[in-house]
């Protein structure tokens, strides 16, 4: 209705007191493929659904390492996400250079939010069309933040963004109270199960999702496909044994040894220019 009259540029308010361009930017985030994050007291896990434009192309990289102690998962315009990751990496490097210590996650998130806000108040700019789940560890513990294109940011115990994220959010809402005390492996399992919710029927395989972990004594790294597939196999087997949502304990014990996540950054450097924006 009136919506179309006041949405031409970002510096125009609507009579209802809304900035439509910013809201449209948030829509772009909802169109991107899902990304989820959850945290315990000592670890944070990020996961995302790999979406490839066609069977021939490789999938887009949606999880970026920002520093040893911070990583980010994005949903929306991946090009914007890449640019923001580069900014975040630079900020971390500059901070370490000056202060010889890792950048506290909360500070980085505020800087990011301020950067996003600038784009909502300049007529010659447009808002970033990407939502970022920032996962990090600093002196005050493990953190998970969500940065919106509007310049707002919130801290979460667990969150999901992107398409069909509501299913994942419902799953996380049911379980989040247990997350603080969860072990790292249980957290990874929950992340994969949350991703499975967003797939809604598609088979869950390691090629369709990417998982990354950061924690105490564990620098941020992406888990390699083999490890992820092993975890998936454990609960597929559990389902066959008619043992639905509970984790199989014996297999968990074996998994823990196998899961010493190595720093193999899977996804490959060929992705960067390969596919257009994630819509």
């Amino acid at each position, binding site marked *: 209705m009136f919506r179309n009259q006041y949405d031409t540029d970002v510096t125009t308010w609507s009579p209802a007191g809304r900035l439509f361009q910013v809201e449209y930017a948030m829509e772009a985030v909802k169109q991107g493929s899902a990304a989820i994050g959850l945290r315990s007291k000592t670890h944070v896990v990020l996961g995302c659904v790999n979406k490839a434009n066609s069977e021939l192309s490789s999938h887009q990289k949606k999880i970026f*390492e920002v520093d040893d102690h911070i990583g980010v998962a994005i949903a929306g315009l991946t090009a914007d996400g890449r640019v923001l990751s*580069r900014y975040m*990496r630079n900020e971390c*490097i*500059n901070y*370490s250079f000056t202060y010889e210590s890792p950048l506290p996650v909360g500070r980085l998130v505020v800087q990011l939010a301020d950067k996003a806000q600038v784009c909502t108040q300049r007529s010659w700019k447009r808002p970033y069309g990407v939502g970022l789940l920032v996962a990090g560890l600093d002196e005050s513990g493990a953190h998970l933040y969500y940065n919106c294109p509007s310049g707002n940011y919130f801290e979460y115990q667990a969150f999901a963004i992107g398409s069909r994220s509501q299913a994942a959010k419902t799953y996380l809402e049911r379980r989040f109270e247990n997350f603080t005390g969860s072990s790292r492996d249980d957290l990874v399992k929950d992340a994969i199960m949350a991703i499975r919710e967003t797939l809604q029927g598609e088979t869950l395989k390691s090629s369709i999702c990417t998982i990354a972990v950061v924690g105490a004594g564990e620098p941020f790294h992406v888990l390699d496909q083999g490890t992820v597939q092993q975890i998936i196999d454990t609960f597929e087997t559990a389902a066959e044994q008619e043992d639905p949502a509970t984790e199989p304990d014996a297999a968990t014990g074996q998994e823990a040894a196998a899961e010493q996540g190595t720093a193999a950054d899977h996804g490959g*450097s060929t992705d960067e220019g390969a596919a257009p924006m994630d819509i």
Partner: protein
Amino acid sequence: CVAIAGADYCVIAADTRMSTGYNILTRDYSKICKLADKCVMASSGFQADVRALQKQLAARHLIYQHQHNKQMSCPAMAQLLSNTLYYKRFFPYYSFNVLGGLDNEGKGCVFTYDAVGSYEKVGYSSQGSGSTLIMPFLDNQLKSPSPLLLPAQDAVTPLVEAEAIDLVKTVFASASERDIYTGDKLELVIINAAGIRREYMELRKD
């Protein structure tokens, strides 16, 4: 500081004495810095500038890793160091560097620099106050053909790792006898296919 390159290893060494004028500030200061998995730099000169240079290179290396998903090779780091030094051509880093490591094929390589970034790939080198005493002896023991010769000849020494380490220890022990700025302790870093290891040797304390 000294570095020697071999067929499949590289030895980089520096003493651990920090001094000013006729005084010793500390007997236990490391002048060797690991820049990448297979690349190590030893520097003598003004240590504050050395420290700043090390931090600059570490930050640039991190950026490289983010962009290329891999560690920088030794020859790439060598060029980066040269550019970084020349960038401050008109207010130089007072730092005399020697870069050592394994190149992409696993062969040892040593690069030697002046304060403003002029560099050369060599088979061995020394920089710093003791170099006037050390370099002629290395020339005598390890004389390698010029890199400008054609056909291109290998600059790396035919010595094995143990012999090269022994040579380095001898050379520092001799330099400590006559150079007041060299002494206390020798720190050796040896890079080979198996990884990096450190060794220490006591030197004269006077």
